[in-house]
């Protein structure tokens, strides 16, 4: 074990008095630079563009968030954390946060369960595979605003298709635009309609990458379809599921189109029933032209997303480590080994440098 980690000692093989070239030619130097800097140069267009269109606005937003900003006169005066205090002290902010998370949960959870189910069905031997696979993606191709328009009409309180059907079945009508939870369900339905097919296809691709031998072996062992699904399919989907969860988290926290199009005013309901954080941000910025407050809210949202992203990352890491199983050693063992290897290297370097110094002298 230890012997394999030993580095071959190269110093001994190099002849001590080998002639070093005095001057390196320019061409040679240039190709050295080429090797060193070219990769950075090639990826620089993205980063330069990102700095202009991404980094600068983010920083500028931060500056504005500390000011009482007048968009038209393009000027403002510094007021410290007042805008942040204002945002956090508004009951609206907490309602918006509640709505955002509620809609996010109502859309992500059923959507993922449904997507896994449909993907599992599509993974079976069915006729006209391509047709079915393309069909689930069609809602994704539709413009979100068009989806929102159609669904808002269906969820009309008095003459909408959904309530008319419910009443024909003898059930009470649902107050889609006055009850908070009902409005969240309606909006989550639009989101689910649009994104389920997209997630289905991603999960289907992951399912098809699972080696078929697993299933064959399980069948031989006498495991039923359900058991195979829970013991083979689901565990193998973990990395893909994590990707899908992260993307839908980011999307869910920024949900805007659907609540904005949900009623005729687009301001989140009479009692803020479906006011989301981004929708409120838009209303403050482009409804009231108060960009200082909007900027402060944008930064608060940014920090929330960062925090949730960090939580996601920790959860993801532990999940992937458990699942990958590439490194069976414990953390302490790995650290100890790394330390030992480092010490050996240092000792090695010491041994090498001493004779060289003598030779120069």
């Amino acid at each position, binding site marked *: 074990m230890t012997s394999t980690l030993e580095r071959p000692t190269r110093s001994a093989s190099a002849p001590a008095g080998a002639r070093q070239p005095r001057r390196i030619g320019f061409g040679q130097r240039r190709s050295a630079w080429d090797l060193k800097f070219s990769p950075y140069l*090639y990826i*620089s267009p993205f980063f330069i563009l990102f700095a*202009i269109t991404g980094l600068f606005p983010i920083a500028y937003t931060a500056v504005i968030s500390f000011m009482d900003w007048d*968009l038209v*006169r393009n000027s403002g005066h510094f007021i410290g954390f007042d805008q942040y205090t204002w945002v956090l002290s508004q009951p609206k902010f907490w309602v918006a946060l509640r709505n955002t998370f509620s809609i996010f949960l109502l859309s992500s959870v059923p959507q993922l369960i449904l997507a896994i189910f449909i993907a599992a069905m599509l993974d079976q031997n069915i006729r006209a595979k391509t047709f079915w696979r393309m069909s689930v993606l069609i809602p994704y191709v539709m413009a979100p605003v068009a989806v929102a328009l159609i669904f808002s009409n269906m969820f009309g*309180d008095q*003459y*909408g298709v959904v309530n008319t059907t419910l009443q024909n079945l003898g059930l009470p009508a649902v107050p889609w635009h006055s009850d908070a939870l009902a409005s969240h369900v309606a909006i989550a339905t639009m989101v689910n309609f649009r994104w389920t097919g997209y997630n289905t296809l991603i999960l289907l691709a992951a399912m098809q990458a699972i080696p078929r031998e697993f299933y064959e072996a399980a069948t031989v062992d006498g495991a039923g379809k359900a058991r195979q699904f829970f013991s083979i399919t689901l565990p193998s989907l973990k990395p893909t599921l994590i990707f899908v969860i992260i993307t839908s988290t980011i999307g869910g926290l920024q949900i805007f189109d659907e609540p904005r199009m949900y009623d*005729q005013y687009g301001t989140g309901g009479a009692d803020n029933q479906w006011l989301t954080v981004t929708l409120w941000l838009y209303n403050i910025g482009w409804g009231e032209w108060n960009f200082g407050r909007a900027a402060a809210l944008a930064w608060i949202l940014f920090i929330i997303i960062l925090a949730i992203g960090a939580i996601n990352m920790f959860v993801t890491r532990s999940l992937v480590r458990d699942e990958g199983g590439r490194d069976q050693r414990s953390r302490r063992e790995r650290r100890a080994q790394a330390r030992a290897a480092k010490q050996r290297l240092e000792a090695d370097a010491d041994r090498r440098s001493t004779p060289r110094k003598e030779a120069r002298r």
Partner: protein
Amino acid sequence: MKNRALRRVALVAAVASTSALVLAGCSGGGAASGGDGQVTLTVATFNDFGYTDALLKEYTDAHPNVKIVHNKAATSNDARANYFQKLGKTGLADIEAIEVDWLPEVMEYADLLAPVPDDLKSRWLDYKVKAATSTDGKLIGYGTDIGPEGVCYRSDLFAAAGLPTDREEVAKMLQGDWSTYFAAGDKYVAATGKAFFDSAGGTYQGAINQVEDAYENPANGEITATTNPEVKKIYDEVLKASATQSAHLGQWSDDWMAGLSNGAFATMLCPGWMLGVIEGNAPEVKGWDIANVFPGGGGNWGGSYLTVPANGKNVAAAQELADWLTSPDTQIKAFENAGTFPSQTEALKNETLLSNKNAYFNDAPVGQILTDRAEAVKVSPYKGKFYFQINDAMQKALTRVEDGTQDAATSWQQWVTEVDALK
């Protein structure tokens, strides 16, 4: 060797494309005026102002050195976003149309607009001029159209309820203040069990527009809405009536559009431009009519102005064109093109306007009716910079009561809290 050459080419291309993108972001198109007295004027409007190419050609024929480029935004909201993003900077047209809804916000920046010459001030109705006059007495908008309000009603539903159906008699029945209107509503509800008007919000809007200083003190801009007894009175009155008489259909909702045709309500407060909305949403209904009356006197809802940004390239030429576009004669032609009801006193005496009839509304003489309604408007409500936020919150407060989320007292309290947070 070949590889390296290729690499160099790729590098140059990469750098060039990056800088091209950067430069493209900075350069902006600008309209230029030629050297030989040639002027290109841009006019930006929204919806339909009735400024057809043929109409604009009349001006360019009379002024051969002028070229007009007319840009139309789809909605007033698009125009509003564009206006405030560019006002005081560059990129606005020489003449920009604005709507009454966001006029109070524009008034905040009255110093960035070229004032209308004093000798034109007598051209428009008093309240049209007053609304667009800044605190230091500068008029900043050339008035185009207004929205004088009458009462639209369903004569077939009135007949079923045993109420008069003839528009003269309906006007006589509703003549008076708001309590007369609500009393008629009680009769209708008692006879049919159906709703009398569309929503508390729309009805409230009609009443609050008759209050001089509803929400703010014009002298110092202080918010007085929550302590103004008149606001509270209208709020209580409207909600008391709406409990039995309202169809609870928020204006512009899908349900409301359906209600226009399915008889969910029998009357609606009706500015001139609403006639087209009703006809468009209920083309097959025969019963809609309009009565020459409005509860509590006159009322105006909507209308627009033309403004000339002061930092434009051709301010003088633009003012001349705006003057012509809002002259009584031109406005009558615009009315013929798009039904925009004129705000110019001279135009209100015009025969074309007065003889205008609407076939859908049972051949009602809408030109004459709306002219009478325009002259009945006596109050020019003061709208300060918080007007629309306060009013929007009020509309939501009314909706909360209408949809049963809250009772009237709780909803009022929440509105007070929201208004207090505005300062």
